[in-house]
């Protein structure tokens, strides 16, 4: 079910997500020291192109990576054929991307 191009796309997004994940966790642990409120977070992220890019790319990579994985699971565990599995993949991709992009927009540019 997984051909070469989807395989490369999934591995490449995994590669991209590794530093995103490390930075995400490290900043979270660092920033939360001594307590942190929502307004303090928004104070740092609002208007920041850097954070918008960081989490924008993170969301894009996660949407691609996750939806390809769900396609394989749908095919191997639910027996979906190529077409329906592709629809599942596209749906998961769009839902993850929309939800993620909305959140990124809200905390950085909204």
């Amino acid at each position, binding site marked *: *079910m*997984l*051909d*070469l191009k989807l*395989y*490369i796309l999934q591995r490449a997004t995994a590669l991209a997500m590794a530093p995103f994940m490390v930075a995400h966790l490290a900043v979270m642990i660092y920033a939360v020291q001594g307590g942190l409120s929502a307004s303090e977070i928004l104070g740092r992220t609002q208007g920041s192109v850097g954070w918008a890019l960081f989490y924008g790319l993170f969301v894009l990579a996660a949407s691609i990576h996750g939806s390809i994985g769900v396609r394989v699971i749908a*095919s*191997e*565990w639910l027996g979906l054929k*190529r077409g329906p599995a592709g629809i599942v993949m596209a749906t998961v991709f769009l839902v993850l991307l929309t939800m993620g992009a909305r959140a990124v927009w809200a905390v950085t540019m909204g």
Partner: protein
Amino acid sequence: MATAGKLMDVSVWRADGKREGFDAFQVPRQESQTILDVVTWIQQNADPSLAYRFSCRVGMCGSCAMMVNGQPRWTCRTHVQKVLKDNQLKIAPLRNLPVIRDLVTDMTEFFDKWVAAEGVFHGTKTRDEPMAPINHESPERIEASAAIECINCAVCYAACDVVANNPDYLGPAALNRAWALVNDVRDGADSARLDAVSGSGGCHNCHSMGNCMQFCPNELNPTASIAGLKRATVKAFFGRGG
């Protein structure tokens, strides 16, 4: 011998197109007895209608693999003593293959997939040219030599959960064969072969669970071969400019 003369309980899968299910037999234990000995004893002494497949009886031909207590085994080299559980044996046809009758599976799709994976040798020299010199210490030859001892028994194919969930998947044996040929300097079809193992049933479907490596009776490592194919296909993809 302590076990000689004792009886063990053996259930054997039967399927003749009309009825299918396990039949129970009591088989005398013997010293150094193999699973193939047990099946043969049943056919010769209890039920001559039992169908099974074997040939060499010495672990070379790859004909006699079956599921034994739920695990794929080469039955001619599997000692009863090693797999007997609570004095019971459950013998069934290989998983992931259609059954022709009783313990005999139809291996057509298994071998078709060898061909689909470009498992055929494509020589680059004619018979009039001198033999290709092979350096047995070269990294490619070491990879090829590691993969080449496959006896086509389909134990790995039966052990593979990806095959079970994705009937198009070429499977560990065919991909292992492809990897042996990718590393064979005498073969000239690498490009076609890498394309053949990059489709929707190709090497990228492998989850690296390692069942094939775990159960291969010749202790080959198809998981590593498939990982090699994944690397080679990605390299070729970027090498060609995408």
